[in-house]
């Protein structure tokens, strides 16, 4: 990847970081309700993988920690913030919320709140791709704790059996809510677990954008060539608790400091500075611009957007005026 592209990626990653931090503030201000799961610390995973893919062409599906994956898939951040603010202009029209970001026009197939729920959905999307005969792939991002659900095993088995074009990306942040992986999981290295299904896999440093991007390029080449699924494990860390209702008291400060010393945004920034592509002042200006953009465009749009009409509360439960409910048009 060219350095000019990396500079663009740095800007996008920093935007995602500031977006999520602003979500935290908006939650404290009570403009965002319900559950809120934030992504800071894990940015190199989504950006490293999706830079190697074709966002908007390839399908992406993930869990409830979904804002950043949607943004990188092409969603307008203003409409994502409006969703978090529960507005009609939200990507899911204020019906979904933080855990249910959907933007089908950009082939972002949703955030789902049941841990492990998207595993079979991703395999099914891949089955749909296979039937349509296109060159798209489905990329499914889930955390390490999802791998202890039955859907993990059931879906990997079928994906391998039927050679479905699906890339499973495991964002291993070492904790399932508040339980450390070695206290919940017999095999800690997740990439080893898929060998039971003859699925090729790799483990990579999830804090280093370049390494993630390289590993994802290889993985995506495999999946797109019709050879079946691939499993990529990325070692990463979330800076905040599992959700806003998590006190985050279960992790040692030394551990947190160790990981924040390997911040994915700072690592990419310093690499560009070393290469002479960026100065620290330029970076600070970029940061100021992004903070202004989030405040002036994203937050403003969400704040000024209307709430959904209460009269529409029963809309979208079932299809509207589906002729087959009445037995169709009799021929």
């Amino acid at each position, binding site marked *: 990847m060219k350095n000019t592209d990396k500079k663009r990626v740095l800007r996008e990653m920093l935007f995602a970081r500031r977006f999520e931090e602003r979500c935290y503030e908006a939650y404290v201000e009570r403009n965002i309700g319900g559950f809120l799961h934030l992504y800071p610390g894990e940015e190199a995973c989504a950006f490293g993988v999706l830079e190697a893919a074709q966002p908007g062409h390839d399908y992406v599906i993930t869990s409830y920690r979904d804002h950043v994956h949607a943004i990188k898939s092409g969603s307008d951040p203003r409409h994502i913030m409006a969703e978090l603010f529960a507005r009609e202009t939200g990507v899911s029209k204020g019906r979904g919320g933080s855990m249910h970001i*959907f933007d089908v026009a950009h082939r972002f*197939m949703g955030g789902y709140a049941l841990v492990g729920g998207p595993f*079979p959905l991703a395999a099914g999307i891949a089955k749909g791709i296979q039937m349509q005969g296109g060159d798209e792939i489905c990329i499914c991002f889930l955390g390490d704790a999802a791998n202890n659900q039955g859907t993990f095993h*059931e*879906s990997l*088995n079928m994906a391998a059996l039927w050679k479905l074009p699906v890339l499973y990306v495991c964002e291993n942040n070492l904790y399932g809510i508040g339980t450390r992986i070695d206290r919940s999981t017999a095999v800690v290295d997740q990439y080893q677990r898929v060998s039971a299904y003859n699925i090729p896999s790799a483990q990579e440093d999830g804090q280093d954008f370049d390494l993630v991007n390289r590993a994802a390029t290889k993985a995506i080449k495999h999946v797109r060539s019709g050879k079946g699924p691939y499993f990529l494990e990325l070692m990463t860390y979330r800076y905040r608790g599992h959700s806003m209702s998590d006190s985050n008291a279960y992790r040692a400060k030394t551990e947190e400091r160790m990981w924040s010393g390997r911040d994915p945004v700072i690592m990419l920034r310093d690499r560009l500075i070393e290469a002479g592509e960026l100065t620290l002042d330029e970076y600070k200006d970029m940061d100021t611009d992004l903070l202004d953009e989030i405040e002036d465009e994203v937050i403003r749009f969400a704040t000024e957007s209307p709430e959904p009409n209460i009269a529409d509360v029963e809309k979208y439960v079932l299809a509207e005026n589906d002729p087959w409910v009445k*037995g169709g048009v009799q021929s």
Partner: protein
Amino acid sequence: MTEIMFWEAIMRAHDEEMANDPMVIAMGEDIGVVGGTYKATLGLYEKYGEQRVIDTPISENGYTGLGIGASFLGVRPIIEIMSVNFAWLAMDQIFNTAAKVRYMSGGQLQAPIVVRSPGGTAHQLGSQHSARMEKVFMGIAGLRVVTPSSPRQAYGLLKSAVRCNDPVFINEHELMYNMKGEVPDEEYFHPLEGSEIAREGRDVTLFGYNISVHWCLQAAALLSKHHGIEAEVIDLYTLSPLDREGIRNSVSKTHRAVIVEEAEPAVGVGAEVMAIINEECFFELDAAPVRVSALNVPIPYNHAMEKAALPDANDVVAAVRKIFGI
């Protein structure tokens, strides 16, 4: 009209819909090479191939979720779950994804899947193969539930369900696959909402669905012959949404109601129909509605005990006689 068996009607609906639309697929355990436990997909594997007639692993939640994901891209999966008892394992994907995805995506996605599964109690299959689960499915917003009582309905409901853009659960019955009945020779799409008058009457309404429609019809014949009571039988082939208008119209005519369900009474079809009668036509009633249900027990293996746990036509007759005080 041609008389065919229930399983043949389902197979014909599959065949026509798969011929009509290359995105229609069938999935389930043993449905391909074997042709289906109840033959409902017999011959389709040979005709449409393994990409469209898929023998799945025994992973109910996994393959149901796979079908749902495929339906996001316009695939129309007809998913057979071999026994409704196994559908418990797929509840996560049916309830959490299929029934909710249209709503929580603000109308962007839909999951037009069909899940077919035999519920009901057959002969001595034991507690874990005798569940009646229609009550569970019909309580979930975003899901349609239909349940055929005849080959004609089985054929026409499946055809409409495949084309409908909502997820549809079709509750079949293990004892009914060899039942014979007339099915139109021309293509026929049965409505997914409403109810049918299976027998006209004036004195009492017997509400049934799926197998209990037949118990109601047997009971109506006995009541007419021995007691001069002319019962109307309403076939509730749609359990969600229940046909409020059909329920109101019949009770307004007969002023008495008995609801007959194969399941345990709590939180069931009987309870729901009674609630609708209360809401729609309470002042039309000449007697308190009665439900005839199974006992509140897991189904026993012993055949005599199994029979004792389930209602039949005689129980329906007894309930009606009690209403009339005869």
